[in-house]
Structure formats: structure tokens, C-alpha cells
């Protein structure tokens, strides 16, 4: 849901600052230059929040607020005063008419956003786009850890990814980084002194910029009490030390809702290539199998009819791999897709040892498999079209 925020201020400068402050959030900014315009726009658009100045020509903010609160259709709209008109008595008098908050100018943009975030559930703009982000897209990951060796381990373990891993040693530095930008994911060590991890977590959750950012807890496995507390307060995931980079990468991808299908599937000319990585652990195979049916279906839908199943990178065969290969071949047959297998000497030899896999035929390279498919399978409609043109 896209929130509507109405700023009523005779100063164009303030309206520009408001627009600037909410630039990174999924909300629409509406503008009015005085109370009369403000009431008209409020009635027409029913904004989710109104930021209201006091001193304005034509109709001032107090009059607009009074009229708004006496209108049954508009009185529920939350109003936050944003004005240079302060002083205890003034503030109390205006607050009595019915305002949700009161900011006296001068003001910091962060404070404005933070206070609005308490009234409406502001979401950063990139959150909606996260679904379409892939594992090969850059991302900004912040690690708040007082032990430099752990930061180095994480940086080294994820160095093959396009992610930028930034490490800071304290809660204050973490907050500073988050005030300047919005990391895509934050890892906080529970070993920060004085319960710093939990304080930082609460502060980040109170800030609309980081309210929805996945936050992981880094901990030692035996610290069960801390682990329980982290789960209770709502950390997105737990990462235990010593850190397993594969597990961390997988959890990060999941938390950021990244499309990881490109790890296993790629369309190469008129052929879908399914490739299992060297480390095809249970979690990797589970992830690959999620994409299996949609990718094969999409291949047919796009007008292609060839699939290469490449398990060359694997060092050995195990039941999980056999199971997913059976599943893939079965789906290919159901969808009338022509497929070919590619394996290395070790895998081919291991397949000969199992009753169910003995008859499988392998090619030595993806190119060989493609050439074989080109001979056996009829050309795809797309290829035919290309030939005609």
C-alpha cells in the first residue's frame, strides 16, 4: 500500500525538504500552500498523514486543524504539526485540538521521517523491488562486530559474491552507517558490550529506514539464553560462530528474497542449462528443486525444447542428487522437453554402480550435449523463426 502524505506549508522550501526527506520511501507526497488548499486536498485524496504549518496566509494551520477535526469524514486523519510556532502554551493549545505529534522548526529530516514512521508504516522504496533482485546483484551488508577477525571471516567467506561487506566495531558506528544509508542486511554480534546488540536492534527497528531490513544475530552456539532472547525480540535469523559461509550466504539470500535460480539455471541460446554446484548439500538441492518446475515450464512457454542437465562440478553422487535428477528428467518427459546429461568420469562411474542410474547416458561437455540435442531434437519454433529471418 502506497501511503499519501500531505504537507501544508506556505514555504516551498519546507515542501521541498519534506519531499527530499521521504524520497527513499514508498509514499506519495501531496502539497498545499495554505489551510484552504489543505482542506480541499485532504477531502479529495484522504491522505494517511498531514504535516501542518501554523503561520500561513489565507487560512492558518490552527483554523485548518479545527475545521478538519470538526469534519466527521476527515477527523480521523492523523496530523503532525511542523512549525516554527512553539512555546509551551502554544503547543498545548494546539495539541488540545487534536494532533498526533508536534515538531518545532528547525528540524532534522531524520527526525521527521522517524516520527512519521510511528504513525504510518513507512517502507523503503527498494523493498518492493527486492523480489526481482538476483543473487548476482550488488547488495550492501553491514556487520556490527567488535572482533575484527569475525568481520574478516565474513568478508573472506562471501568474497565470491557481488555483495559489499562493511564492518564496524560498535553500536554507535552501526547507527552512523544506517543514518547515512540503508544497508540491505545487517549482522549484529550479540557479544557487543552492555547489551549493545539488543539496544541497536531496537533503535534500528524504530527507524523507518531500517524497520524492515533483515537483521541477523551473530552468536556462539552455546549461548542459548542470548539466542532465545534474540529470537524473542525478533532478529530475522541466527548465525552461529564458527561461521559457515555457505549457510550464511544462503540465509542472506533468503532473507533478502533474492532470486537464486541463476545459480542453477541459465538459458544458453535455445537451450536451458541446469547446473548443480560442487557443494550440492541438502539445502542447495532444496533451493534448486524449488525452481525446477517453474524453470522447465518457462522454457516450454518461451518456445524452447532442449535442456542440458550438467552435474560435472559434483565430486560424488548421493541420494539427494539422484532424486533431483530423476525429478528433472521426469518433468522433461512430461513437458516433452529433450534433455541430455553431462557428467565427469567419477560421476559416470558411480552411476554405473546403481541399478536405477546404470542406464543413464552422459556427455563429456555441455557443448557435446548441445550438439547431440541439436541432432536428435527438432528445431525449436524460435530457432526456425531465426532461420527464416
Amino acid at each position: 500500500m502506497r501511503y499519501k502524505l500531505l504537507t501544508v506549508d506556505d514555504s516551498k522550501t519546507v515542501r521541498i525538504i519534506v519531499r527530499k526527506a521521504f524520497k527513499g520511501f514508498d509514499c506519495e507526497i501531496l502539497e498545499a500552500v495554505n489551510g484552504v488548499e489543505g482542506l480541499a486536498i485532504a477531502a479529495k485524496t484522504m491522505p494517511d498523514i498531514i504535516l501542518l504549518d501554523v503561520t500561513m496566509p489565507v487560512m492558518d494551520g490552527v483554523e485548518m486543524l479545527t475545521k478538519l477535526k470538526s469534519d466527521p469524514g476527515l477527523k480521523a486523519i492523523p496530523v503532525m504539526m511542523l512549525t516554527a510556532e512553539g512555546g509551551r502554551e502554544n503547543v498545548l493549545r494546539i495539541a488540545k485540538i487534536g494532533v498526533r505529534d508536534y515538531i518545532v522548526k528547525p528540524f532534522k529530516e531524520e527526525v521527521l521521517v522517524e516520527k512519521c514512521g510511528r504513525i504510518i508504516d513507512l517502507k523503503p522504496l527498494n523493498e518492493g523491488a527486492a523480489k526481482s533482485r538476483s543473487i548476482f546483484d550488488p547488495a550492501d551488508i553491514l556487520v556490527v562486530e567488535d572482533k575484527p577477525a569475525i568481520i574478516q571471516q565474513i568478508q573472506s567467506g562471501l568474497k565470491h559474491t557481488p555483495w559489499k561487506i562493511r564492518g564496524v566495531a560498535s553500536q554507535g558506528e552501526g547507527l552512523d552507517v544506517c543514518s547515512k544509508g540503508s544497508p540491505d542486511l545487517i549482522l549484529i554480534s550479540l557479544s557487543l558490550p552492555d547489551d549493545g546488540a539488543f539496544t541497536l536492534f531496537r533503535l534500528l527497528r524504530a527507524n523507518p529506514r531500517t524497520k524492515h531490513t533483515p537483521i541477523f544475530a551473530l552468536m556462539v552456539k552455546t549461548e542459548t539464553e542470548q539466542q532465545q532472547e534474540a529470537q524473542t525480540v525478533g532478529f530475522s535469523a541466527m548465525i552461529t560462530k564458527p561461521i559457515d559461509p555457505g549457510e550464511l550466504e544462503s540465509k542472506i539470500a533468503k532473507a533478502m528474497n533474492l532470486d537464486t535460480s541463476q545459480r542453477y539455471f541459465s538459458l544458453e541460446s535455445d537451450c536451458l542449462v541446469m547446473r548443480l554446484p560442487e557443494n550440492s548439500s541438502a539445502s542447495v538441492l532444496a533451493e534448486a528443486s524449488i525452481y525446477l518446475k517453474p524453470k522447465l515450464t518457462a522454457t516450454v512457454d518461451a518456445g524452447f525444447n532442449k535442456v542440458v542437465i550438467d552435474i560435472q562440478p559434483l565430486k560424488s553422487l548421493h541420494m539427494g542428487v539422484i532424486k533431483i535428477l530423476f525429478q528433472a528428467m521426469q518433468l522433461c518427459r512430461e513437458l516433452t522437453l529433450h534433455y541430455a546429461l553431462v557428467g565427469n568420469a567419477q560421476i559416470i562411474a558411480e552411476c554405473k554402480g546403481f541399478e536405477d542410474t546404470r542406464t543413464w547416458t552422459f556427455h563429456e561437455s555441455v557443448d557435446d550435449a548441445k550438439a547431440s540435442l541439436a541432432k536428435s531434437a527438432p528445431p525449436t519454433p524460435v530457432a526456425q523463426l531465426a532461420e527464416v529471418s
Partner: protein
Amino acid sequence: MPVVVEITESVIRQNIERAITEVFRTMIRAESSLMTAGETFAAPDYAPLEPHRPQVVGTVGFIGSANGLIYLYFDLAFARFCTCQLTGMTEGELEENGDEVINDAIGELTNMTVGTFKNALCDAGYPCKLTIPSIVRGTNFSIEPIGAATRHIFNFNCAGHLIVADILLERDE
């Protein structure tokens, strides 16, 4: 009801010093300091506010138990800098948008400064309200108060630029 504090020269100085410091630190991210009598700028690029140079002057009044008017004088170059800082515009964008944006930005800075100044008066027992800002700009002009007002002038060094606060207060009858 708050205890009414007499509006002395010292109260005025404290209030305007706090107002200028707070507004320019928060909105422009620049530190300001009140200059003492006879103090000159150390900054080498300082260009003093001279009447023949282009100036932008913001004015906001306050009316109620205390009545007055504050003028804030800006050198045009500094007014442009403040506008860019406030709005996030580049010099090029500022050029495209014309003087109206600068006038509005200086009006708003003056509004915030006078607001902070007069809010302190409100809390000291002088309830009053702000008026709508206005702008005077040009070269070679001076603004003179009417006879019934007391005048206090303070110079501020804001990141190497001069800001002059000219405060006119209505005399008690």
C-alpha cells in the same frame, strides 16, 4: 503561568545566539558564533556585508505580549549557498529556478530563527505569535527603525560568512 523575566540586552543576546546557532547547525549543517565588538573575520575568503554588495534580507515579526521584528542580512552568495544546502539543489538547478527559491529559503530560515527566538520569549512569560516572512533584496540600501523601537544588532560568523541579526523591539509604554 511562567515567571515573567525582563527582556534585557542579555536575554536578547542569549536568545538570538541560541536561535542562530540551532537553526544554522540543524538546517545548513554549519556552525555559527556570535562575534564580539571589534572582532573581524579570520577566514581569508571572507567578504564583509557591504551596502553596495547584493544582499538578501529576511524579515519576520512577532506580535503579542512582546512585539518586534527581526531582520537577517545575508550576502547573496551566502544566501545561494544556504538555499542549496536546504533544498538539496545544485547551483545549476538554483539558476534554473530563479530568485524566488532563494527568497523562499531565506524567508524560511528567518522564520525558523525568529521562531526559536520568540518561543523563548513565550516560555519567559511573553506569549506572542509569528508573522508571515517577507524579503527585501537589492544593493546599496539600509533599513531604519521607527523611533518607538529599541534596536539590537548582532553579527555572527557562520562558516566564514557574516550574518547580521537586526532586532527591533517595541518599547514598553
